[in-house]
């Protein structure tokens, strides 16, 4: 098989206060794959995400992005390759206008002029937000801000995008628009979510994380149908939702 987009092996991490948040995490995401990362609150999902682009560094183990291992020298290139979309779009969008915000990433990597303009246009078009290029982020709806946040990482032409709870706080219509946008992005995606129908709709494969450990990995429909596994890790489907019958 080709080089995995994301390859985490034997990753362990303890916070300075001694709390071990991750232990022996193994994770492989292949090129073009969409994978959901499921698990209860406090399972260590967000901590794992912060390792994927070197904001946190492992106590032991390695993280590789398209073959490149994270080190002091490679960390900047890793950050270009891994587009992290944070949970709260207000954390992600900090520039005065949408266009400037989308340009922030590629400009940090030295892109400028027409090439930068084109990246901004391309990224905003991919999330259907080109009309907002001159607008201020705080004048957009929550769903629009979420889509712009995705554009801000697409503009860096990453190898993989990693989304933290992308459907939280979205109304059903914004959620559907987001699913459509992500479905049409031809790029590797790792999605952390509590929204299990969303995981089923978007990601053929899922991983379950609990207690800082990956406890299961399988086709999403199989995971969601395994009642014992679901119960053991505090995962619950919406009332009367049958994953085998959902038609994905």
């Amino acid at each position: 098989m080709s080089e995995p987009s994301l390859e985490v092996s034997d990753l362990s991490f303890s916070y300075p206060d001694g709390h071990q948040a991750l232990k022996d995490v193994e994770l492989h995401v292949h090129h073009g794959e969409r994978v959901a990362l499921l698990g209860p609150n406090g399972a260590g999902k967000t901590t794992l995400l912060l390792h994927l682009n070197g904001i946190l560094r492992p106590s032991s183990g390695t993280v590789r992005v398209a073959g490149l291992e994270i080190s002091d020298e490679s960390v900047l290139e890793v950050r270009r390759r891994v587009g992290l979309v944070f949970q709260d779009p207000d954390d992600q969008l900090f520039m005065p206008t949408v266009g400037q915000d989308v340009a922030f990433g590629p400009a940090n990597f030295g892109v400028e002029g027409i090439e930068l303009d084109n990246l901004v246009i391309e990224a905003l078009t991919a999330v259907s937000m080109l009309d907002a290029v001159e607008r201020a982020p705080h004048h957009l709806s929550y769903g629009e801000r979420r889509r712009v946040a995705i554009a801000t990482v697409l503009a860096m032409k990453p190898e993989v995008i990693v989304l933290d709870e992308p459907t939280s706080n979205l109304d059903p219509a914004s959620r559907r628009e987001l699913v459509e946008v992500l479905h049409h992005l031809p790029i590797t995606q790792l999605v952390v979510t509590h929204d299990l129908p969303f995981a089923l709709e978007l990601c053929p494969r899922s991983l379950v994380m609990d207690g800082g450990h990956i406890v299961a990995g399988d086709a999403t429909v199989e995971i969601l149908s395994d009642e014992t596994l679901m119960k053991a890790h505090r995962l619950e489907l919406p009332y009367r939702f049958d994953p085998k019958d959902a038609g994905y």
Partner: protein
Amino acid sequence: MAIPRQAFWAHALAACLLLGVVILAELPPAFVVKRMLVEIPILIFALLLPFYGRGETTELAGVTLSVEGLWGAWTILAKATLGLGASIVLSATTTIPDLIRALERLRVPNVITAVAGFMVRYLDIVAGEFSRRRIAMASRGYEPRWFWQAGPLAQSAGSLFIRSFERGERVHHAMVARGFTGQMPLYGDRAATGREWVGGLSVPTAALVLAAVAIIVLR
């Protein structure tokens, strides 16, 4: 600002100029008047000056007033009103992102323009958070009327500070995640067009000419 204080006519002309710009910019009068209200404390101070000024005095309707104080009051009144009016026009006709970009082009240090940009971006969010808390407090029966009831409000401001600080940390993570290494990149930077230069310079030039004429006439 440079118009000599004796030149009443020049101040009147400057006021006409300002009024003309307000009309040209199609600013609603109520909008301008509302924003002029911040001037009130300064005006009160100015109006007190003639009563407390020293030196030569004069009688006006039976009240003894200081001549120097009267001049002081007039100067503050005229300059504050004109200055405030001009800044209202500027802020109403220029978007904040444009102002910040302009400051960047004027070589104001990057750190200062970045801080100004962040302030503009997050002021709304922090204010929104604060007003949601006030509503949540009011919903549970907290309606402060007196100073000694302000405790919870102050505590709320404190925890808001902590939350904003944490948000700052998250924003920094988001910046680092997109390759930020300590220098804000410039983007959307463009030179002003000739028309914009003419438009932008017309009012200051007119004011400058007015001041120069006033100084020469009074010599």
